[in-house]
């Protein structure tokens, strides 16, 4: 059917109106409880609430802009690319790490209700409103040598070829935009400021997996150090949840763990023995031997730290002794244990 020009214009107007209907038919009123602080003039931070009506397409960045443009010109935040690649506008809304320019505002209202709490990534590092001092983040990033260490021929005759399989091993770790969302969501970092944190560890993985790189061993040694490296990850998955690029930092941390064993960098210590000790228990019982794993990881001398707890656990009936002696053969066995033993024998790929 052929439409007249007028019909087409009428139809376009109707569609346009309809779109606006849906746009404005369900605008949502929102209260933005916003963290305000100026390190130069304020002794303590405070919260100020701004009310506005939010349409379906508005992003958190639009709301930040409206606070600044319609309410208070002194409101400060970082923004640059506006399409999720520079990482500058990362903040937290109701504790959830977001890239302001990527996060739909009504989506958050659905998640948290009509009061949104707008906060910087780290309150203790706040400089002015949403702007924080990211110095710790960059220092840790630098610590892992986030670059390819290689003797490069200045006049190469061929390109460095990387197979698709090899490329897959990067697990998209090279997509990290250094926004800091995972770093400032990590509870391990919160209680141990020496810990490298998920973002630096993702970088360590990214360059260690690079076939051109020659500093892999050095990075693996650094990231295997107790107190700062992968063994201090608490496995809470906060970083997985926080990453706006969906890179799964914990997956890379696990790969770094594996690489320590694969490349023989792992030293025998409480953490590596704890990971490897699982095989020892499972081979024997199918289950983990809870008492043995502590004994095996810590060694006899290290056990003194646990004696108090062990005594309390024993008193509460948490430690069993089917054999008449505590800790000896205190663990039940699974059915068909021989299958598990066989599977360990044929599937185990690493050693300590």
């Amino acid at each position, binding site marked *: 059917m052929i439409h007249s020009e007028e019909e087409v214009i009428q139809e376009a107007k109707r569609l346009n109106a309809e779109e606006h209907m849906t746009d404005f038919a369900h605008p949502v009123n929102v209260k933005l409880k916003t963290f305000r602080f100026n390190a130069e003039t304020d002794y303590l931070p405070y919260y100020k609430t701004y009310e506005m009506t939010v349409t379906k397409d508005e992003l958190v960045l639009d709301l930040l802009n409206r606070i600044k443009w319609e309410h208070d010109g002194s409101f400060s935040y970082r923004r640059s690319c506006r399409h999720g690649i520079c990482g500058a506008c990362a903040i937290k809304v109701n504790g959830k790490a977001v890239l302001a320019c990527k996060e739909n505002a009504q989506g958050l209202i659905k998640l948290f209700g009509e009061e949104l709490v707008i906060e910087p990534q780290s309150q203790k590092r706040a400089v002015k409103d949403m702007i924080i001092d990211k110095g710790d983040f960059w220092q840790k990033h630098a610590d892992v040598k986030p670059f390819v260490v290689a003797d490069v021929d200045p006049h190469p005759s061929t390109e460095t070829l990387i197979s698709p399989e090899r490329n897959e091993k990067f697990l998209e770790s090279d997509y990290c935009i250094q926004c800091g969302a995972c770093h400032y969501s990590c509870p391990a970092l919160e209680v141990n400021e020496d810990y490298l944190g998920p973002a630096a560890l993702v970088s360590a993985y990214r360059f260690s997996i690079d076939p051109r790189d020659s500093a892999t061993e050095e990075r693996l040694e650094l990231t295997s150090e107790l107190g700062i490296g992968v063994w*201090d990850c*608490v496995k809470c*998955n906060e970083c997985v*949840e926080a990453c706006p690029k969906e890179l799964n930092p914990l997956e890379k941390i696990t790969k770094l763990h594996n690489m320590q064993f694969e490349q023989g960098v792992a030293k025998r210590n409480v953490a590596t023995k704890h990971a490897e000790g699982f095989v020892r228990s499972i081979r024997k019982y199918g289950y983990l031997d809870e008492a043995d794993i502590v004994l095996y990881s810590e060694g006899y001398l290290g056990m003194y730290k646990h004696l108090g707890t062990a005594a309390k656990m024993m008193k509460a009936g948490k430690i069993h002794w089917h054999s008449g002696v505590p800790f000896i053969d205190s663990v039940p066995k699974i059915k068909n244990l021989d299958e598990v033993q*066989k599977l360990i024998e044929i599937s*185990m790929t690493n050693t300590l």
Partner: protein
Amino acid sequence: MSQLHYALFTGCTAKQSTPELLSSTLAVAEKLGIKITILEEASCCGASHLQDFDEFLAHVLNARNICYAEKLGLTMITICNTCQLNSQMTKHALDTDPKLKARVNEKLAEVGLEYRGTSEIKHFLYTLIDDYGLDKIKEKVQVPLSHLNIAPFYGCHNIRPSELHAESNNHENPYNPTSLDSLIGALEGKPVEYESKNKCCGFHVELQANHASEVLSGNALLDAMDNNADVMVTPCPLCHLKMDTYQPSISKVMGRDVELPVLHMPQMVALALGCSEKEIGLNFHVQKAKQLYLSKKG
């Protein structure tokens, strides 16, 4: 509705240091008429530590566990967040990566098993809420918990990564989880609002980063106490072990007395359904919790 029937993956702790978790789970199932078949063949899930040593081996062992639920044609339920996470991670990896699935099945074939991907994996908490239903639980309450302020502690591995768990935990919001709160409400307890309810207890670095571990659980316990909790409840026995067993050393690190009974989720339900003291097993707690039997009567 036909009778609910599940294959139970107990995990290691329920078979060892937290026998009260297993007995209370079975007691709750019996009261509610849920049929449970224990997977006695299932091994340790690796607890996120074997994964650090040898990820492939961990997948093989977890796939083997799931095979036994598949053989029964049942949904596999877990009573430990970390078992839930690791089983679910293996299921997801195998279901989305045909090459890995083939590699794992090559090993499983050696012991006459095959992973197919036909069984769902769900934590008992979400089974109770989504499959059985809070309204029906409410009808069965014999001892309302109305005298208790109960702090829900969700445990990381049931709520994060949210995308992995979305199907099995009914799209729980990891930044504002509500399932455990609603369960407490259904048992007529008062859920405590506190910020730490979705935070990490630090269990997994207990040995190698003890201080960090103690501070993380200390923060959560004190937050609950400061918001007038009488008791904390968790669906994860690892959170339970950390928070219940270590309160004396946590007190030293935090410089404050930390004293709060910590219940397993099924123990709380068992209390409200009027299960026997033996089944609930509060005597197995390090932090004194036996008074809860008395207070429910009083």
